[in-house]
């Protein structure tokens, strides 16, 4: 494994494995991915309800195969890589869902603009619900939107505007998770280089010019 410890980015091959959710149709492997002594320290994986343990184990397996951790220290960093990779994917999902939540508010705002009579809250709510659940109401509202020179894209745009403060927060959290995952990768490589240097007979090498050697002799 050749990683540049000073690089901010992780290698593209590892990035590809980390950024793509692993296929869920793979049968679980019979071989333990984590040695027993390490598993005792790790405990159970931290998953959210609805997340598949097989996906987590597959991602862990991919990272372990790539990194090939040798020490407990490296296993700790490997766990970080997997957990922060999961966080990055979760944050992405949250962003999408937050925009989806904003869609109802956006539909209500657009409906309020479209109808001219009876802007009573109950009527607006009924029309908004109808937009999501009733095709005829949806078509009627689309006609009203067209009459005003608007399209359903306006609803998406309004939803994005409403959700932008939340998306900004999630983006910041996602950025932190990415940074920490990259740090974990760099620390493994840094540790290996340190051990490599320490394993030589003369870890500190002093470069001496030829004329300096003559003077010393």
């Amino acid at each position, binding site marked *: 494994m050749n990683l540049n410890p*000073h*690089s*901010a980015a992780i290698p593209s091959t590892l990035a590809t494995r980390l950024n*793509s*959710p692993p296929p*869920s149709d793979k049968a679980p492997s019979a071989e333990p991915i984590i040695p027993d*002594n390490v598993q*005792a*320290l790790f405990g159970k994986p*931290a998953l*959210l*309800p*609805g*997340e*598949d343990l097989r*996906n987590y184990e597959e991602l862990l397996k991919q990272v372990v195969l790539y990194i090939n951790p040798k020490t*407990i*220290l490296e296993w*700790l960093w490997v766990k970080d890589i997997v*957990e922060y990779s*999961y966080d990055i*994917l*979760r944050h*992405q*999902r*949250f962003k*999408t*869902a*937050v925009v*989806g*939540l*904003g*869609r*109802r*508010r956006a539909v209500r705002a657009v409906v309020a603009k479209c109808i001219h009579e009876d802007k009573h809250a109950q009527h607006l709510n009924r029309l*908004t*619900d109808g937009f*999501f*659940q009733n095709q005829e109401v949806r078509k009627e509202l689309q006609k009203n939107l067209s009459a005003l020179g608007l399209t359903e894209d306006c609803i998406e745009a309004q939803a994005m505007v409403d959700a932008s*403060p*939340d998306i900004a*927060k*999630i983006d*910041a*959290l996602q950025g*932190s998770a990415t*940074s*920490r995952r*990259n*740090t974990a990768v*760099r*620390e493994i490589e*840094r*540790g290996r280089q*340190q*051990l490599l*240097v*320490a*394993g030589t007979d003369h*870890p500190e090498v002093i470069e001496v010019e030829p004329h300096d050697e003559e003077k010393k002799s």
Partner: protein
Amino acid sequence: MTSQRRVLANRRNAARSTGPRSAKGKLSASRNAFRHGLAISVLEDPAACREIKDLALALAGDHPDATQLALARDAATASIELRRVREARLTLMRSINGQLGPPGAPGTGPNERSTAQGGPDTTSEKPVAASSSRNLRKSLCDLSRLERYERRAFSRRKAALRSFLCAGSGLTVRTSRKSPTSA
């Protein structure tokens, strides 16, 4: 290397801005530890102390000397502290996840949620109450507040693991300038 003048200026500035000043602010801050428990040291939890001991022994390996054991203990303490922050963060993420609806595999959006049979959910979207949006905003704010604790815990653990590694490999720990790429 930071100059002495800069160090003194930093100390003056820190003394000016540290902590709440009003009675209300002080009362609110005094309850911080009860809100999520992260302001309390992990060493005050007996269960955590046992885990720290186990992890320190696993890190130190067979026949460590006193220095290695002490550094392993520091690294283990930092690791358990980080794990505690992550657990608090995961609790909040569970709350957010519950408000957003059950997910499919990570990386899928709300339109790809799985049904009980495991297939994608193709029913029309259900309208969401306004109170859900408020709760979601609050949860996201709380998650952002935890970021400070996690940043600090991660940084401490990185430093502790580096010190332990250097002690084991016989190299000297050098404090380097903070790089823009470090977490």
